């Protein structure tokens, strides 16, 4: 089953660093994550019409934006990373 890793504020909101859930697409996995963790967390991920604009989802390190977005297919060994970018500009670390 794919392993989901939460980073930053989403880790704190989820109350854990990782969760393992069964799903065959990114959309189904994110729905499963929201259901498993709770409604407050779901609101952080979803707008009602789609993903919150500041939520970034990686599948094996690649942003789903450059794969098949929410239709990205998942395999059991895949690693999914979710983080909250919220960035508005271009500074540095």
């Amino acid at each position, binding site marked *: 089953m794919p392993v989901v*890793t939460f*980073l*930053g*504020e989403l*880790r704190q909101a989820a109350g854990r*660093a990782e969760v393992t859930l069964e799903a065959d697409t990114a959309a189904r996995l994110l729905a499963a994550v929201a259901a498993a963790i709770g409604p407050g967390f779901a609101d952080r991920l979803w707008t009602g019409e789609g993903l919150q604009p*500041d939520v*970034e989802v*990686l599948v*094996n*390190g*690649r*942003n789903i*934006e*450059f794969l098949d977005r929410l239709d990205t297919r998942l395999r059991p060994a895949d690693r999914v*990373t979710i*983080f*909250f*970018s*919220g*960035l*508005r*500009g*271009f*500074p*540095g*670390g």
Partner: protein
Amino acid sequence: MGGWQGQILRVNLTRGTCKKEKLDPKLARAYIGGRGLGTRILYDEIDPKVDPLSANNKLILATGPLTGTNASTGGRYMVITKSPLTGAIACSNSGGYIGPEIKFCGYDFLVFEGRAKTPVYLWLNNDKVEIRPADKVWGKTTHETEDRLKAETHQEAHVCAIGPAGEALALTACVMNDKHRAAGRSGVGAVMGSKNLKAVVARGTQPVKVARPKEFMAACLAVVNKLKESPVTSGGLPKYGTPILVNVINAHGFLPTRNFQQGQFEGADKVSGETIADTILIKNKGCFACTIACARVSEVKEGKYKGAGEGPEYESDWALGIATGVSDLPAVTKANYLCNELGMDTIEAGVAVATAMELFEKGHIPQADIGRPLRFGDADALVWLIEEMGYRRGFGELVAQGGYRVAEKYGHPELFMGVKKQAFPAYDGRGAQGMALGYATSNRGACHLRGYTISVEVFGIPKKMDPFATQGKAEVSKLFQDVTAFVDSTGMCLFTTFGIGAEDIYPMLEHATGAGYTLEECLKVGERIWNLERLFNLKAGLSGKDDTLPPRILHEGIPAGPAKGMVGKLAEMLPEYYKLRGWDGSGVPTKAKLKELALA
């Protein structure tokens, strides 16, 4: 005009004289201040071929028109000089309180010339100026120096100083201010040391007047509100600081590990922002007028690395930890504290250690030269070597000169990971092509603060761009480089651009100065500054041939992970970049471009 105090203090250390000069308003308008105007002054006053550590080089402490005002984060100052590390233009930027305090003494710029016969410090007490002996603090750490000089002058004074590294002319030396803030890159601390200038101490009470107070405050409040609305500047940065990036970049597969030999670090989470927040973080802290407060006040409460201070920030965390393969957070934090106290750039120091580690592991440096094994992941070796470097003792004497000199000395300059002899920061350009181009073309050598394309390549702001793709990266690199030059010249912190853009900053600049700026003109000033820096470098002897990357980045694919097989595709981007810049195929600005920018 407002914003500017209208005065430069010229300090001739050879003669021991100080002279006040009027700021040229036309020049100030054309270059704004800080990085822009400081570079213009340096360009006009020194021969770019000068030996950077000679008395003929100059050291400029520059503020911007928003430094010392109510503009959020308007507390920056810059140290501008010819770099002894790169031989190119140097401009290192820092926050804290010393920049505003210099303004409150009535000065926009301090220009240091010549070399004092014996160690001195400059004491600015409002409009009174004294060059004082620094014998009592020579050899002391930056923290001891600050404490002693405050006791000698005024407890509410602010101090910038070099540590033992700067005194010993280490090319990794920086200028520290307010104990924990650093004008870090390009070896500016060595230039200060070469002038026998230990510190600048300032205590002022003269406010910075603005041209249109009501409109200025309205523009400032609009910015504060935007920063409050941004999840990063109101939440993410204060809570986790910049080390939040450790796990993010690791997940993408371009977190440079063990001197760029890998793109992912198995110990990343142990030194991540999340772990720092859960373990050593005491509180966050802000600089002058800052509403973000990203600094990390930290403490290692027990064990052999016990201590207290500030950091690590992302870049320091990476260079001292991930680049060296060390996942022991207390050790990384201790190394960071040592860099601050001894006055060394954490990026340059960490990458220098990583370079030495790779050379040792590959058998290029005999153990006898070092005096002990120096393997990746050895926390004790890291902390030991950082201290040796700070005092330039033993093997540390060489490593304190930066990774390039270490790799060159042992016959393998190709193992130095940097550009123009300055070390890379914490993103592997093979996995983020925009960063590869930005590093190669940066006027001060490899740098993440000269065009942070991670914004589009990782965070999708203002649009998402595939980090592996080269298309469009030349255009975005140029834009970000120019905007950054503009922001750096105002006296604002670049971190505000997590929440606001140039369109929000320029109204503050305009109402502060009343100089008639437009947004378009501000961006043009940024481009002018970038080209002026380029002209300085060309006159110093650099050329388009220096706009390149190490062989590892160009030819060796990242060995595993999400970016497996990726190399830096510079050849696909550089010609387009030169064309967009209005430069010829050799990277030289055309006459038409220079005329357009009023540089001809």
